[in-house]
């Protein structure tokens, strides 16, 4: 039971990383300035690196002989367990950076907690990824502050992005029987603990940015159970095209 729970848990982490990396990769060559183009794709590459390590671990836990490429490229949409937040379209620069900020503010405390996990491989991946994630959060926070407290237009766009994305943030803290089994065994942290830290970061950065947390608390989820938004299929057709068209091809 715990092996399969851990597989599910690690798969969720990997899918979050991979799908967000794919979205960020779409900015390649389209960034608002050259420097930011490189920054966004750097973050994308960090996330792909994390996804590879996590998929390797998931594949080992599963023990069915699949490798990281098969997990990344050869599953159907309902087998991906990423949160809806990371598959949302890039929109404008504010939308991309706010999506990134909400995600980074969640990932950092999660990795910090997972560094203490008795599952050694998971703790090691968390320890390596935490430095990258700390930088991602710094980068996205700096931008949120500058857009919110910048011009009238940047403020309005940043607030519009928050108002749109807020409904997807609650799913970051999704828990089910898999999580509860692992939490009971002391292998992973309780999501309530991560959510409290996330909320503290979000509150402090948004207030510095003179941006507001939406009053409307309507929540949206399904990604963790494989029920995705209409954007996911298009994203996967891009992501999987090469492996589907040329099975087993390698660079």
């Amino acid at each position, binding site marked *: 039971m715990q092996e399969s729970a851990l597989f599910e848990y690690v798969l969720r982490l990997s899918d979050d990383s991979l799908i967000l990396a794919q979205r960020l990769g779409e900015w390649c060559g389209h960034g608002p*300035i050259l*420097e930011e183009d*490189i920054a966004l794709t*750097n973050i994308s590459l960090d996330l792909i690196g994390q996804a590879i390590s996590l998929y390797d671990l998931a594949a080992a836990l599963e023990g069915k002989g699949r490798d990281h490429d098969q997990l990344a490229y050869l599953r159907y949409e309902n087998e991906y367990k990423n949160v809806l937040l990371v598959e949302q379209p890039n929109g404008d620069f504010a939308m991309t950076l706010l999506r990134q900020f909400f995600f980074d503010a969640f990932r950092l405390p999660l990795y910090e907690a997972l560094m203490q996990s008795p599952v050694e491989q998971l703790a090691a991946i968390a320890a390596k990824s935490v430095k990258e994630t700390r930088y991602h959060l*710094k*980068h996205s926070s*700096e931008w949120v502050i*500058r857009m919110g407290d910048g011009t009238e237009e940047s403020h309005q766009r940043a607030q519009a992005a928050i108002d749109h994305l807020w409904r997807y943030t609650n799913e970051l803290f999704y828990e089910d029987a898999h999580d509860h089994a692992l939490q009971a065994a002391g292998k992973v942290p309780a999501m309530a603990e991560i959510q409290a830290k996330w909320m503290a970061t979000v509150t402090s950065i948004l207030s510095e940015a003179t941006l507001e947390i939406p009053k409307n608390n309507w929540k949206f989820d399904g990604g963790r159970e494989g029920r995705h938004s209409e954007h996911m299929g298009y994203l996967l057709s891009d992501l999987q095209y090469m492996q589907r068209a040329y099975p087993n091809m390698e660079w």
Partner: protein
Amino acid sequence: MSTNEWPLWEVFIRSKQGLNHKHVGSLRAPDATLALENARDVYTRRSEGISIWVVESAQIHATDIDEAASFFEPSDTKIYRHPTFYEVPDGVKHM
């Protein structure tokens, strides 16, 4: 349009402990914090550095190319300023 452009920054990177910061290029950024982050992303992706300085290009004062003759040529004829007139004793190595 050019009035809306972010200021230009010059980037200096120390590649390892004990070496000087060296000029590596320039970039655009709205302020010093983001200039440092951009420099990190643009110029240290392949482990090129352990420390970064950024200076707004407008803050750098440079010699005028038209004055190069009066600035630099006079020293060309003063070979006695180079320590090349010494006999190096046989026992001294690595000179």
